[in-house]
């Protein structure tokens, strides 16, 4: 294998990885504010894409109208989920919170498919699929677009978390009680983070929907997203970005070699291995706080 090829695998892996980061940012936002691991993020992603399609395909609106509309709707869906389901569980054992988000995941998926049916649809963002060569390396335009969105979101959130509202959200993630004591509405803050995560879900859903079509399989991104989030540290957005790149490269380059040995399909294995090893060796991930729960 020559170097150009290795470089191409690496770059394309990193770009794909950034698309995982996109997903993981949604997880991080919620975990950061409320320490809830949101297993329903996959279903939210899928729902986000379906809502965009409902506006663009079913109602015939152009995408640049459909996406903002979906963003607004999903923002309130996210807030609603937090308010109805999660708020009551504050302070309950993590098993119940996990099960709750799993229940929400199953519910959202069932409802989405009951409304729109299971056959795959496509989002057309108008990104060209003509080959794009950089030197001898072939890059994917849509992946570049997606990676740019991920990085743009990262910058946006970086700035947001330095704004006054963002600082208040960070305060909530630091200390509930202290936040309450200085008049920060923790409920509203956590709700806001769910709303933001749902907006991220729309972005993720549209980009992944363009790449692989909109159907049930969008929710399967969850395992990769979780792995990226855990590797990055669960409460760190920069962590999600870096971990996404790492996982993407590991997957792309690693599976190239491993597939030969194990006879294919080693990508899932790599993801599972990264998840297990991270938890075993460094549960707080690359950028997570050290005080994260462990034995």
């Amino acid at each position: 294998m020559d170097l150009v090829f290795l470089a191409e695998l690496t770059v394309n892996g990193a770009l794909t990885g950034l698309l995982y980061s996109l997903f993981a940012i949604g997880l991080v936002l919620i975990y950061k504010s409320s320490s809830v691991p949101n297993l329903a993020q996959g279903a939210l992603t899928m729902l986000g894409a379906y809502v965009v399609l409902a506006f663009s395909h079913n109602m015939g609106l152009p995408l640049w109208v459909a996406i903002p509309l979906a963003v607004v709707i999903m923002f309130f869906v996210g807030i609603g989920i937090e308010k109805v389901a999660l708020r009551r569980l504050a302070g309950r054992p993590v098993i119940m919170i996990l099960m709750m988000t799993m229940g929400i995941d199953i519910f959202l998926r069932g409802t989405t498919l009951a409304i729109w049916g299971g056959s795959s649809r496509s989002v057309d963002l108008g990104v060209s699929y003509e080959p794009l060569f950089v030197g001898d390396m072939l890059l994917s335009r849509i992946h570049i677009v997606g990676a740019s969105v991920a990085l743009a979101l990262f910058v946006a959130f970086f700035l947001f978390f330095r704004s006054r509202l963002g600082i208040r959200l960070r305060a909530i993630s630091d200390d509930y009680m202290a936040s309450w004591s200085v008049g920060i509405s923790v409920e509203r803050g956590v709700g806001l983070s769910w709303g933001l995560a749902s907006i991220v879900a729309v972005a993720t859903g549209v980009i992944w929907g363009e790449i692989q079509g909109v159907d049930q399989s969008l929710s399967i991104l969850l395992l990769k997203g979780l792995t990226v989030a855990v590797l990055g540290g669960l409460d760190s957005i920069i962590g999600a970005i870096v971990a996404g790149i790492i996982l993407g490269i590991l997957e792309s380059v690693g599976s190239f070699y491993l597939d030969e040995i194990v006879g294919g399909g080693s990508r899932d294995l790599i993801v599972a291995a990264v998840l297990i090893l991270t938890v075993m060796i460094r549960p707080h991930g690359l950028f997570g706080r050290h005080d994260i729960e462990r034995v």
Partner: protein
Amino acid sequence: MKTKTYVKRLAAAAVMGLTSLSAANAAEDTIKFGMCYDLSKSYTFVTPQITQAAQDLATLTNMKGGIGGHEIEIIVQDHGNEPQRGIECYEKLKREGVFVFDMLSTPVSIAVLPRIMKDKNILIQSLVGRGDAADGSVFSQIFPVGPTYWGQAANDIAYIKEQSGGDMKGVKVGFAYLDYPFGQEPIEILKTLAEKEGFELLLYPVPLPGSDQASVWTKVRRDKPDYVVAWLLAGGHVVAAKEMKRNGFPISNYISVNWLNEVDIANIGAEAAIGLKRGTNVAGGQDLPIIQEILADVYGAGKGAGPVEKINDVYYNTGLAIYSAAFEAARLAVEQNGFPVTPDSMKAGYESIVDFDANGLFAPITVTADDHGGGGKTRIEMWDGKTWVPQQDWTAAYTDVIWDVVKESSSKFTVE
């Protein structure tokens, strides 16, 4: 409409619990087909069309007087691709007088197999499940009418051989497959053929659910295979088409498994898909006598089982193919042994199907006690931007090789 209201009536009755059993047992003047389908999980890209086709065909047949004067009932239930629920569905319908079952899900078909064999009922297993079930001497109760994946893969190779001028030395064939039993199944036969014909076989596993193919096509671009045979499903083809474009692999050298339909074409883009090839078991398009009849008589009378747009889908044709063969078997059963139809007479009916093609819907099949596949002919069709154009006649290549594999595999199955 008969079949549909029946579904609902049945559901209503079942709520009442035990009472439904005796009630359903009384209605023995019909011929029942039980479709325990996955309508909610992995097979949703195909099951709605197939159930619709089966119901429409039943309606049409009933409008024409049914089979030997007896109406057909189609009972549809969801099992969500879960073996557990598939078995529940089987056991329940069994007691309601159903003995012809169709599971359309590999895991569930596999799960009910032992029960079907033990109860001596009939399992329609076209297009899914185990390929070796074509061996009627072992799988006496299973009817995978139509080609197996093995036969289809072999025919793809035969087509490539034909295109390469009869000599496959130096030809590279890539095989992109979903990395689980569905996609892995043809590997054995492809390896055997590669040895026999001297072409180079390159394997490209695609992890489930098939949406992540970036590295596969990067490899394809470097390996430069002449053809890529693809055992993917639904969205997988759409991703592949995009990747092909990106990697400069001509879509006309892409030969898909039969699971690629008009929805996928629309998702790829009708223009972008021009030249794409598909191995198929049934004739595509609506230009078929049986579909015209359904459109006129069933949908014309407002009795369609679903939206009329869904008819324009090769999976609808596939459903028609499965059930026209099944109804033909039932017709023969009534003709030979009279009413009521029993599992034995149904089996005999199936095994006496000769040269049946449902007016050009698929290649003529002849089912025998040993060959439950019925010939296993497929053909390659090409998308020309508007419709599917057949590239060859119905063929069944390398039948000896396939039967070797079938026999070898079926010999491992023992009926307990």
